[in-house]
């Protein structure tokens, strides 16, 4: 990575800088609020590096969840990453050792940037992609540490700060709603999950296991309708 690549990549990442600093600060603060040292916020942001996944992680750590539950919930929450990978197969080809980092760091925001940018004339495109991914990761780490340290130092009543996770999902839902023309999967997801919650109860979020099975089965049944016309 050289100055020229950095100068070309940085402006593209400014929106992510703003977003990651703020969402990262909230993550760090939430983690401090449930009693974990700022070091853990840093370790999580370096090694996990997933916005909604780490918000969920706060919940899992606060409840000392069993490892199996943690693995399952992390899997569901990050399932959408499968789609991102599919559309980056070509872009990451031939990146050598950096490809591993590109795959690791493929968050929603980095995906959105990489899907839309082009390296300017005279800048190596692979270095350009790598720089964008690395900058985004650094913003996320910085935000988490700032939030965690602030949360440890400033003692205000943080009851209710965990609502940030709900707010994050609501925001994602609004954006998905606006970019899709077919909303049947949303209703299926809500109805299927609600039914499982009523039957199995809320403990440990285990009702999500049958709920996920219902969603996949339901979507497979709805495939002829959803794919017909092919609009969204």
């Amino acid at each position, binding site marked *: 990575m050289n100055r020229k690549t950095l100068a070309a990549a940085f402006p593209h990442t400014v929106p992510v800088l703003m*977003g990651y600093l*703020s*969402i990262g600060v909230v993550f760090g603060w939430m983690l401090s609020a449930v009693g*974990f040292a700022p070091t*853990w916020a840093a*370790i*999580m942001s370096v090694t*996990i590096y997933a916005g*909604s*996944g780490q918000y969920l992680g706060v919940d899992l*750590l606060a409840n*000392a969840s069993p*490892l199996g539950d*943690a693995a399952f919930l*992390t*899997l569901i*929450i*990050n*399932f*959408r*990453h*499968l*789609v*991102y*990978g*599919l559309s980056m*197969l070509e872009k990451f080809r031939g990146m050598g050792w950096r490809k591993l980092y590109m795959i690791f760091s493929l968050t929603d925001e980095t995906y959105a940037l990489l899907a839309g940018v082009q390296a300017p004339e005279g800048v190596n495109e692979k270095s350009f992609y790598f720089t964008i991914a690395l900058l985004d990761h650094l913003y996320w780490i910085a935000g988490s540490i700032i939030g965690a340290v602030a949360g440890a130092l400033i003692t205000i*009543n*943080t*009851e*209710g*700060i965990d*609502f*940030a996770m*709900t*707010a994050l*999902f*609501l*925001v994602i*839902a*609004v954006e*998905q*709603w606006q970019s899709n023309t077919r909303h049947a*999967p*949303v*209703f*299926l*997801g*809500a109805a299927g*999950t609600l039914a499982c*919650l009523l039957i199995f109860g*809320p403990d440990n*979020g285990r*009702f*999500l296991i049958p709920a*996920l099975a219902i969603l*996949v089965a*339901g*979507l497979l049944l709805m*495939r002829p309708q959803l794919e017909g016309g092919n609009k969204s």
Partner: protein
Amino acid sequence: MTTIQIAALVAVMAAVTFLTRALPFLLFGRGGEPPKVVLYLGRFLPPAVIAMLIIYCYRNTSFGAADGWAPGLIAGLAVVGLHIWKKNNMLSIVGGTILYMVLVQIVF
């Protein structure tokens, strides 16, 4: 929790997260089209899963006294309204969370 237990939980989350990102490359990285059904689920499952996760977040709502459901409902509507109006992630998330904190700490 002991340090080992925390580390184990973080390691599991890191490993599973990486796995979800690496899987497409492991399965389809050597060329070859992904099966149509995978592409189909990849397109329509995420909105269904987000709806599922929102219900997960609201799983402990109780419908007795107002403090069991009103703060979550009001703050949730505020987040959706703010986001439709301003389309600013930071504003919607931080604004909604502060509103929720005020509601649970002071109002209800």
